[in-house]
């Protein structure tokens, strides 16, 4: 009997221990990003690191162009992916049961499994020359190319979450709307989608997080110029690509500290988006 209780205690201790480790991982990563970028805050030189210039030889470590680049590329990707993703979800629900709709569902799931580097690799040889030749401006490595491919990356996230949330709308509402003479499309647009608006927001925010957090597509397709893009055909660098490009070994150096600032910005954004979602999900109608 005693033995049994002992066993229970041990197994419980193991569970608690592993949970403490995994559960605190996010916090650990945050603390370490914060710890290494802390000198930037305390020395009052934060302004220098948020300036528009990145030129380590000249002692300029501004990451503002990268913040702007990330914002441009991710938001353009979302402008494309959000409506397309929601439209795909609505389409799949509207024609649920049809062969094409089922194919589409498989296809979107398949899309979510395509490695990002494969997307980037293909787009490098098709999309970049296409953009270059179509617009006859710039190298084709630009905000537009990266955003288009990022949109493809994000569409499955948006449409699969939206579709799940549409399906969670109680059947009663669908039947009620149907019995009142609403067509399937009307039911979807007037009842199901409005009822699932929190789900749509979740889908878009999570998709946006994916677009902002992806490294390889922007790295391969955006051209990585350190300047604030002024047109969609301009080359730009994202925060993530910047971290990948500035390979350094010395975490005391200023360029490495600037990298931690980039990491911190990315981390804070993902944290706030999660908190934002929690708040939205808790909102009443």
């Amino acid at each position, binding site marked *: 009997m005693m033995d049994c209780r002992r066993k229970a205690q041990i197994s419980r201790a193991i569970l608690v221990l592993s949970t403490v480790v995994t559960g*605190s991982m*996010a916090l650990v*990563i945050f603390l370490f990003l914060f710890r290494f970028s802390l000198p930037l805050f305390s020395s009052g030189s934060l302004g220098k690191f948020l300036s528009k210039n990145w030129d380590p030889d000249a002692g300029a470590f501004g990451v503002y162009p990268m913040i702007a680049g990330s914002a441009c590329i991710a938001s353009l990707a979302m402008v494309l992916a959000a409506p397309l993703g929601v439209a*795909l979800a609505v389409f799949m629900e509207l024609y649920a049961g049809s062969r094409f709709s089922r194919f589409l569902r498989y296809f979107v799931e398949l899309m*979510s499994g395509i*490695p990002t*580097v494969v997307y980037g690799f293909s787009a490098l040889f098709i999309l970049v020359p296409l953009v270059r030749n179509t617009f006859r401006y710039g190298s084709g490595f630009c905000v537009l190319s990266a955003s288009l491919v990022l949109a493809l990356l994000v569409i499955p996230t948006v449409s699969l979450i939206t579709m799940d949330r549409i399906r969670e709308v109680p059947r009663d509402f669908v039947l009620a709307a149907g019995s009142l003479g609403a067509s399937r499309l009307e039911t979807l*647009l007037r009842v199901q989608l409005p009822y699932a608006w929190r789900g749509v927001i979740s889908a878009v925010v999570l998709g946006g997080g994916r677009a902002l957090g992806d490294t*390889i597509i922007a790295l391969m397709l955006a051209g990585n110029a350190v300047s604030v893009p002024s047109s969609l055909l301009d080359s730009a660098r994202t925060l993530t690509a910047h971290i990948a490009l500035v390979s350094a070994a010395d975490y005391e150096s200023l360029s490495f500290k600037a990298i931690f600032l980039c990491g911190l910005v990315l*981390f804070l954004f993902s944290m706030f988006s999660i908190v934002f979602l929690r708040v939205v999900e808790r909102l009443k109608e």
Partner: protein
Amino acid sequence: MNRVVVLTIKVLLWVTAVVVPCFVGMLLFFLLDKGLPVISLKLLFGDVAPVKALLLRERVFDGIFPAMAGTFLVVLLSVMWAIPMGVLSGIYVAEFAGGTVKKILDISFDVLASVPSIVIGLFGLTLAIFLHKNISHRIYPCLLISSAALAILILPYIVRTTELSIESVSLPLRLAGLSLGATKQRNLLSVILPRCSGGILSGVILATGRAAEDTAVIMLTGVVASAGIPHSLFSRFEALPFYIYYISSQYADQYELKKGFGAAIVLLIITGMLFGFAHLLKKLVARKINGFD
């Protein structure tokens, strides 16, 4: 609704439903068109006899075999770290944590899941440098560091699927075990876990796919363009996604570029198989649950 409006909406929906797959299809078709003719034993092993390469008798310099082996090893290791930690944490969150603790843990895992992989890579890199400076000069960015960082990347997925699978076990089934005098632990082990092992497994496979395709984490933590097959945890290594990225930016000649296409297809096949298997498993699990309840 107005007929015109309805028609417009339907046309837009159809256009979306056709254009998006076409666009993706175009990218994939291009890849297959260029890459399929390259797929051969030569792509994998170069001029070395496959058997010799597989038995590690001879080193492969001109094939993607070392990259495949590196990906396999780093993913295997990361899954080995992540499964026990993730499943145990998932069990704790689902069965034992209550109220505020559960809420905090849930948020923490959601945040971890949304942290960009390059940030996790940065964490791994700094950890490696820190260990190198302060613990042992023998530690570099390497297979061990990479696999640990990848494990952090996939941990939240495993925790969440474990948690959700356990919570989806119906109350009557739970009570059935308990009412027969089983302890909570006993019930968990012999009733609940077997019941949701399929769900957990499909989550683990999806996470494996995630680890196999990620480039950003390994890029900062020890992958290189040519290293051969790693012979210890402290070796640098090659990996397929990084190889593809590397070739894309600096192929020396057309043959090397073709190898890049071939490698992309191989990676696509690997992740595709993992995802397909996970979905199949999910479906089987769903059918089983529907069938019993």
